[in-house]
């Protein structure tokens, strides 16, 4: 954080280039909402930003317990940023449990805002504090602002008719938001308008919240606890219209866009599962786009219905997370052999098994590659940021429809719930991915028959003839099919041919995707950091840090995990060392090593959280220093 100070209206105003703020409180305290509103204010102000919600486990834990703590972190700046920030500048802790679970992330000397009213003996006990940390000196090294948030809120709401004390108290998150908005000079009109909209049916509640919000703002002005306020200038961003967007929302919009671009209606067959459910929720709102959403009885029926719809000419989509991918795997294999377009969106979460449903991880890559019986290859696409989920969805739809293949889209919990400003695309930026169905018989023998497996010589794709097309009646199925005609075939040679044709079709996509780009400003780096999926932000941020420290590092990012871009091997071989940071135990690393025989160094962590830029900076510097940072799979196991 770079600072420049000034003194205005009694309080010092510091100009800083970026701020990380974290709200933490009980699940019932509305922290996600608070964070989202702060985000909206910040976005409309024109800062660049990146957010990281941190939910407790799916189920609501008892109020006041550490398990019930919900957090929201926001990083905003006057320049473009890539991650939600490593460590907060200010932590807002609504109760002792929130303090306890978050304080370890707050660097000493930074601001800590606590709701003093919540530090009751009962709450302290629930949080596991024997002594009140506000009194025992343990927080001495922080700039502690002890604000009686609850009582100030109740006081501020005061005599709003029809609002009882409990409801008044609930507005305390708006008080906190007001205070923080003041502290960082956020525009506040939007929040007022938003509260009015949200509580349109109960204007008295809107009123109470607005009062609390304003009181919080005013409190900052008047209290002595805050002697400094901070300004973060708008970021210089490319011109255009922006909105803030989360990954799941962007993915949903991407699917709708893909539907418009291909001319195929979206058919989503899905079964709810964290962190994918929001895509189902979002898509179900857009029926006027011809989007059909079908909440199935389970994951198998979800993909089954999507596949049935794909047979009928829809853009079949199914959304899920790892455990659901397991259940869908047999049907994915069917889709591979049927050679029908289908999108399988896997919003990865912590595994194995039920694992850590609300935490992020990238450990389904090899499952996506190999989690089916037999040789059943398919393309895999991974978005790199929340807004990139939009583009990745369109790209996945392009590949699926052009090559008549299921495609796995690998997002993750962090991308799904994290958000960032998104420069909205204009219509002319969309790719042309219109789809054509087969309408004519095609048998090479001129018999007038339709051969469903006669491939396009260019792409290897088979014709897509949808029911309703006269003369093209045909049957397809999961048994091996004769090359060309598509009849059942038990011939050994035909099976060999078909297996290789299916593989070649997918491998051939390598020539239809952009080459792997390398960010190596001076072209002098010896270490290449290779990332995929949601590690993009922290890897890129770490590379910047390394460079601003005067060192060289190259950064490349894989958007297509299968097949790899055609130039991947060539790129890798240009560097002395290849470092692959992943939120798993080295899955991309293993694919890269097998394919290119490059002794890639894997930096792998599974903590359910995105990497921090500082952490990766260290890892890169270690690699540059020739000290190997991670473990390499080539080392022999010694136990």
């Amino acid at each position, binding site marked *: 954080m770079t600072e420049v100070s000034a003194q205005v209206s009694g309080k010092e105003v510091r100009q800083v280039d970026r701020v990380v703020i974290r709200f933490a409180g009980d699940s019932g305290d509305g922290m996600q909402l608070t964070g989202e509103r702060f985000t909206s204010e910040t976005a409309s102000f024109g800062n660049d930003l990146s957010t990281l919600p941190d939910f407790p486990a799916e189920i609501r834990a008892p109020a006041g317990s550490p398990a019930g703590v919900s957090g929201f972190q926001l990083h905003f700046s006057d320049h473009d940023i890539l991650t939600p920030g490593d460590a907060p500048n200010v932590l807002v802790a609504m109760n002792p449990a929130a303090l306890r679970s978050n304080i370890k992330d707050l660097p000493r000397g930074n601001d800590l805002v606590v709701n003093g009213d919540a530090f009751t003996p009962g709450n302290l006990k629930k949080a596991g504090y024997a002594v009140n940390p506000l009194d025992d000196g343990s927080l001495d090294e922080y700039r502690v602002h002890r604000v009686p948030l609850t009582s100030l809120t109740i006081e501020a709401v005061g005599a709003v008719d029809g609002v009882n004390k409990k409801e008044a108290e609930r507005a305390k998150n708006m008080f906190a938001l007001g205070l923080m908005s003041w502290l960082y000079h956020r525009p506040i009109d939007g929040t007022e308008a938003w509260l009015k909209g949200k509580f349109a049916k109960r204007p008295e509640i809107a009123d109470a919240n607005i009062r609390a919000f304003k009181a919080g703002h005013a409190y900052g002005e008047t209290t002595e606890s805050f002697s400094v306020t901070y300004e973060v200038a708008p970021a210089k961003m*490319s011109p255009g219209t922006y909105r803030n967007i989360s990954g799941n929302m962007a993915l949903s919009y991407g699917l709708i866009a893909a539907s418009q671009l291909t001319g195929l209606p979206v058919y989503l067959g899905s079964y709810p599962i964290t962190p994918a459910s929001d895509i189902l929720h979002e898509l179900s709102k857009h029926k006027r786009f011809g989007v059909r959403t*079908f909440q199935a009885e389970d994951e198998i029926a979800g993909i089954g219905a999507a596949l049935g719809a794909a047979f009928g000419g829809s853009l079949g989509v199914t959304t899920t997370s790892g455990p659901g991918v397991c259940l869908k795997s047999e049907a994915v294999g069917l889709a591979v052999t049927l050679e029908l377009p289908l999108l399988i969106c896997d919003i990865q979460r912590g595994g194995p098994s039920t694992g850590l449903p609300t935490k992020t991880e990238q450990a389904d890559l090899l499952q996506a590659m190999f989690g089916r019986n037999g040789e059943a290859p398919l393309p895999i696409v991974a978005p790199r940021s929340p807004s990139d989920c939009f583009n990745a969805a369109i790209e996945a739809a392009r590949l699926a429809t052009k090559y008549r293949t299921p495609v796995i889209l690998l997002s993750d919990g962090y991308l799904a719930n994290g958000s960032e400003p998104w420069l909205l695309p204009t219509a002319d930026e969309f790719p042309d991915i219109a789809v054509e169905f087969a309408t004519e018989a095609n048998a090479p023998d001129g018999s007038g028959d339709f051969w469903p497996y006669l491939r396009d010589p260019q792409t290897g794709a088979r014709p897509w003839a949808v029911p309703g097309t006269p003369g093209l009646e045909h049957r*397809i199925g999961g048994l091996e099919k004769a090359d060309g005609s598509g009849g059942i075939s038990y011939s050994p040679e035909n099976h060999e041919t078909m297996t290789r044709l299916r593989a070649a079709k997918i491998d051939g996509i390598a020539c239809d995707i952009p080459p792997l780009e390398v960010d190596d400003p001076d072209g002098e780096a010896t270490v290449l950091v290779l990332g995929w999926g949601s590690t993009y932000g922290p890897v890129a941020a770490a590379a910047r840090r390394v460079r601003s420290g005067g060192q060289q590092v190259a950064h490349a990012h894989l958007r297509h995990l299968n097949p790899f871009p055609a130039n991947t091997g060539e790129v890798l071989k240009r560097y002395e060392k290849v470092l692959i940071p992943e939120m798993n135990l080295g899955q991309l690393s293993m694919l890269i090593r097998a394919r290119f025989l490059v002794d890639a160094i894997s930096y792998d962590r599974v903590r359910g959280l995105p990497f921090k830029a500082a952490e990766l900076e260290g890892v890169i510097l270690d690699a540059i220093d020739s000290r190997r940072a991670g473990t390499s799979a080539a080392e022999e196991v010694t136990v």
Partner: protein
Amino acid sequence: MNRLLDLVPKAEAKQTRKEFNSGVDVRWCPGCGDYAILATVQGFLPEVGVKRENIVFISGIGCSSRFPYYVETYGMHSIHGRAPAIATGLATSRPDLSVWVVTGDGDALSIGGNHLIHALRRNVNLTILLFNNQIYGLTKGQYSPTSEQGKITKSTPMGSLDRPFNPVSLALGAEATFVARSIDSDRAHLTSVLRAANEHAGTALVEIYQNCNIFNDGAFDLLKEKGTRDDAGLRLEAGQPMVFGADSTRGVRRRADGGLEVCNASDPGVLIHDPTIDDPSTAFALSRLNGVTPIGVFRDVDRPSYDELMNEQLATATAKQGEGDIMALLHSGDTWDVE
């Protein structure tokens, strides 16, 4: 009510049975009951009057599930147990198609039981033909969820332990709107049941007793053979009294405990069959009848189909909010401009 099937394009000229023969070599054991069902269905399809390109057969895995290959329509031979789910996606996205599911007792009731009961409660516009041979044919003869208890098979050398499902009872318990039963070899009866099923909007489940002459031969002989069939089978006909037997001497009436029982045709209280009663209780009681096997349509009631309702929601949304505009969607919510 807007009948979805009316959306399916009608054939212009009368189609023939031959036009529904795909010409693919039929591969069932000689003597298998599946041949007769295939012939009956191919014979019935022209009567449906739907263009054959707008008809789709979807099956799972099993001997019975080879069916789609032999019918000159669109078809998919999918994976074990999943045909109802796949067909649901197709039927709910394509109101212009007539979608049929072909499945076996293992496919539909063992691995696929969940999809079946959910399709039934949703009332998706499907006609499901369940070939019940009370055995796993394709995998060479293990007992199935409809095999009688104590059945000795490869996997149960000392006899099977589980009480079989009664597919009709199960379907009625799962909110089915149309449930019927017929027999592979009785072409006229099967055709009449297919006709009723086809006319039903929503999910129609047709259980077809099918002989597997290799692994479970003669399972339905009582219902088929001249000497026994009249006493063993009760033909359900709407509006007709439930009487059966060689000389129509036997009937069905309600027992004091509320179940149904066989009585003399001349006894008071012989029931008149009415498949259209909204409450499925009597149809259910009929499925539990001891001493005689009812054949025909147990239940046939009107309820909006899932696909109709889904289409309505899309239409309503579009009517209210206008057709979707992608650029407007992207620009919805809080946006800001940078110059």
